[in-house]
């Protein structure tokens, strides 16, 4: 690899006279980028931004059909997006990394892709995001949560966090936060992701392209102001710390398998190729871990523990993935914290047992029923999501599945390509596979496939970047001219990476097009208009007590699930109840059902309809497009009904003479709802002791591993790890007791 080889090659090239190269001997390895090229890139970037943003002023959102935003975006905007992509790829084609330019372009891409609606819509989008606002508002007003109001109050970490930050800085209006959350969250994701990328054995092109892909492939829309977006950030931090500072220090290049003798080692071809591919000598796909002191590792271990705690308190699925990814890294010997998966598992199980009683006590059967139904889950969260929709919405759903499949298959191809080059990407493999383990969990409202894609993304983007740029380092520029290369002119010289960049550009342009189609594919009903919010304000103002919202659904929500597509409960959460009315498809003017339901609500009954909601019922439920118009006309004309508020976008109706009874009570705050059982007090003592012992054991392990880490390759003194035994012996009975308490709680509380 050293200087001698290259000298020979150079001499050979000169003496044989084949393809002479003008290469002064003392030239720096890579030339500086000329100023003119940088200026041209800057010009392209500015032009792309202008083309993207300026025409957005003239966009008519009303013209949107079932295909969403992509149908109304001006051609210039799409061209601008393509130009932004190509500028980034041109920057990747340069000879050396222009870090500032690359980082700036990624930030601008975040704003363009995740913030395009900021320029189009007056309000923050997405009704579900407004429900998060409702939880946060509940905490700021009551200084507490209420487990019996909603299952999401069982993991309130994120709500109390945002509520605290908002109150502490004196921000009372949550709308700007909702608006800016997707862009800011994506920027934050890049911090830990950069930390993950820098540990990998790859070229700068692969790393920067992976970071770019991470933004462009994240169309799932789980990055709005929500617990899962926050917990995902914690997950990325968790993984980044693990792979940066807790890599297994014994990791070496893998030797060839034991079964190969010196004779068979020489054999090639046929099955031996497969054998070599699987078990042959490999380089690790990560750079050697930087040595770091025990003190630093101890601080980081405690930080990891706190990340697990906060993540568990914030979201119910993410800690499972933290546990699984840590365990996966331990199994493939890329993580030295062997005890951490146990700690994470104990924290997770304890939280579920002690803090989410309200959720599991009422549906024990359902939980266990869903535990093994992997196939049902797969079907429900992919096929089932298409089933009900029709036409345009179905096309968008199909495109989503197509993009997800393309991303996964390209990632697998990237993994294969690296492996055939003798590189063993274990960290990426683990991070790619771990999310699939959550298919065994409960169905999670059919959204599980989206979550799996979301959690696969860090590894998948990396592996796709490897598919285009698989080299572990920038290859030497000189090749032996005696060796005939297929398409040699493209594969050697200072422009040898251009074909790969060109191929990656095609993929990148397609991906951004796909992003703009599917991310905003449901924009017709996912936007929240000013009147939607106003409708709920009007209801709260018109009555003091509970508000019974009656809403129209095309299909029976008890069978297919579903909620009103409105910012319901965006504040005063506890005052709202929701009652669906199944639409009478034959006669839109038949409002007898609605009147009946309104009477059941007592004095606070309202019928609400918004344009987003009506569009959803048309696109997803198959109602006639003029159904809502006829219904509204019938409501306005009915002698029993009075119109509280109505404009083009939303309407609120109530009974002219609402009955005085029943008068439902507004529930008071109920706290976290940790219910009691005979063994619970013991569990509350055992649990912190167990966690303390396990943490102390890990800290001691780090201390015992330290000498080995200082001199890698030197085996540890025999019996070194024996000093962990007292803590292990202490931990086992404690673990059994805690598990017993968890089981006891599960059996007794119902």
């Amino acid at each position: 690899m050293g200087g001698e080889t290259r000298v020979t090659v150079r001499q050979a090239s000169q003496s044989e006279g084949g393809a002479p190269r003008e290469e002064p001997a003392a030239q720096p390895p890579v030339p500086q980028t000329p100023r003119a090229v940088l200026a041209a890139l800057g010009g392209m970037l500015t032009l792309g931004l202008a083309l993207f943003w300026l025409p957005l002023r003239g966009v008519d959102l009303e013209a949107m059909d079932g295909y969403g935003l992509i149908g109304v975006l001006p051609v210039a905007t799409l061209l601008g997006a393509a130009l932004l992509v190509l500028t980034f790829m041109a920057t990747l084609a340069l000879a050396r990394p222009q870090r500032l330019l690359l980082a700036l372009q990624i930030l601008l891409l975040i704003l363009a892709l995740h913030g395009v609606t900021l320029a189009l819509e007056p309000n923050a989008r997405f009704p579900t995001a407004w429900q998060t606002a409702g939880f946060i508002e509940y905490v700021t007003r009551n200084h507490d949560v209420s487990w019996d109001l909603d299952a999401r109050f069982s993991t309130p970490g994120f709500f109390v966090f945002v509520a605290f930050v908002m109150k502490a800085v004196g921000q009372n209006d949550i709308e700007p936060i909702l608006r800016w959350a997707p862009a800011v969250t994506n920027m934050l994701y890049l911090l830990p992701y950069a930390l993950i990328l820098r540990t990998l054995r790859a070229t700068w092109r692969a790393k920067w392209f992976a970071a770019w892909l991470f933004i462009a492939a994240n169309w799932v829309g789980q990055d709005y102001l929500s617990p899962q977006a926050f917990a995902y950030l914690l997950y990325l931090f968790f993984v980044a710390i693990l792979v940066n500072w807790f890599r297994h220090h014994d990791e070496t290049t893998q030797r060839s398998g034991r079964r190969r003798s010196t004779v068979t080692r020489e054999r090639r071809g046929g099955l031996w190729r497969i054998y070599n591919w699987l078990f042959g000598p490999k380089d690790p796909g990560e750079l050697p871990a930087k040595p770091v002191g025990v003190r630093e590792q101890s601080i980081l271990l405690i930080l990891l523990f706190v990340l697990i705690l906060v993540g568990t308190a914030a979201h119910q699925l993410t800690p499972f993935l933290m546990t699984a990814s840590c365990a996966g890294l331990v199994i493939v010997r890329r993580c030295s914290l062997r005890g951490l998966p146990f700690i994470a598992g104990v924290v997770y199980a304890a939280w579920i047992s002690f803090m989410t009683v309200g959720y599991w006590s009422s549906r024990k059967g359902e939980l266990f029923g869903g535990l093994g139904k992997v196939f049902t889950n797969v079907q429900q969260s992919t096929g089932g999501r298409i089933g009900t929709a029709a036409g345009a919405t179905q096309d968008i759903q199909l495109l989503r599945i197509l993009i997800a499949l393309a991303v996964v298959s390209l990632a697998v191809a990237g993994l294969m390509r690296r492996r055939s080059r003798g590189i063993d990407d274990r960290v990426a493999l683990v991070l790619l596979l771990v999310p699939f383990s959550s298919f065994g969990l409960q169905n999670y409202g059919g959204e599980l496939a989206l979550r799996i894609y979301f959690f696969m993304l860090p590894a998948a983007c990396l592996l796709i970047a490897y598919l285009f740029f698989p080299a572990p380092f920038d290859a030497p520029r000189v090749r032996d001219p005696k060796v005939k290369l297929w398409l040699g002119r493209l594969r050697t010289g200072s422009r040898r990476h251009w074909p790969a960049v060109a191929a990656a550009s095609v993929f990148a342009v397609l991906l951004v097009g796909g992003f703009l189609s599917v991310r905003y594919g449901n924009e017709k009903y996912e936007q929240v208009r000013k009147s939607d919010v106003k409708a709920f304000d009007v209801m709260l103002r018109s009555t003091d007590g509970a508000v019974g919202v009656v809403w129209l659904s095309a299909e029976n929500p008890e069978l297919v699930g579903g909620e009103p597509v409105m910012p319901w409960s965006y504040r005063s959460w506890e005052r709202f109840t929701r009652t669906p009315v199944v639409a009478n498809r034959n006669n839109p003017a038949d409002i007898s059902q609605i009147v009946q339901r309104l009477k059941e609500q007592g004095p606070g009954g309202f019928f609400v309809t918004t344009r987003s909601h009506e569009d959803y019922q048309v696109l997803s439920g198959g109602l006639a497009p003029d159904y809502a118009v006829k219904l509204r006309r019938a409501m306005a004309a009915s002698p029993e009904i009075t119109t509280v508020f109505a404009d083009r976008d939303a309407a609120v109706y109530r009974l002219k003479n609402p009955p005085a009874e029943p008068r439902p009570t507004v529930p008071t705050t109920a706290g976290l709802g940790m219910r009691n059982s005979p063994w619970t007090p013991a569990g509350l003592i055992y649990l912190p002791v167990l966690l303390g012992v396990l943490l102390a054991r890990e800290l001691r392990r780090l201390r015992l591993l330290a000498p080995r880490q200082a001199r890698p390759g030197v085996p540890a003194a025999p019996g070194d790890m024996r000093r962990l035994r007292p803590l292990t012996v202490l931990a086992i009975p404690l673990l059994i007791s805690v598990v017993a308490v968890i089981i006891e709680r599960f059996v007794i509380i119902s």
Partner: protein
Amino acid sequence: MTIVLALLLFAVPGAAFWSLMRGFDPVGRLVVSTAASIVTVAGAAQILLMASAWSPGAGLVAVLVLSGLVAGLARLHRPRRLSHLAMPIPRPPRPPADVTRRDLPIRRRDDDSEDWLYQD
């Protein structure tokens, strides 16, 4: 103004952790401090909720106390760290100019796969 206040709220624990994490490279130190500051603020809010004492004022006090503790810990550990720094760490020799694979200091174990025989 609100954004500045929010940044300040995260900067206080962040700075405390920054001072605690000597011995890291700058990028790693920055990212870890960011993670630690987010977790501190979120953790303080969560602990207060579980203690049924959630309020903005109490939260501010909790964040300040936690940051103070961390900063105190950082000061406490400083002397040992300085004496450690006084010992110069031998730098690895610079690789020759035309070595491209400087990321591969590990030698392949492929060649000497029998050396385990001689280990005790």
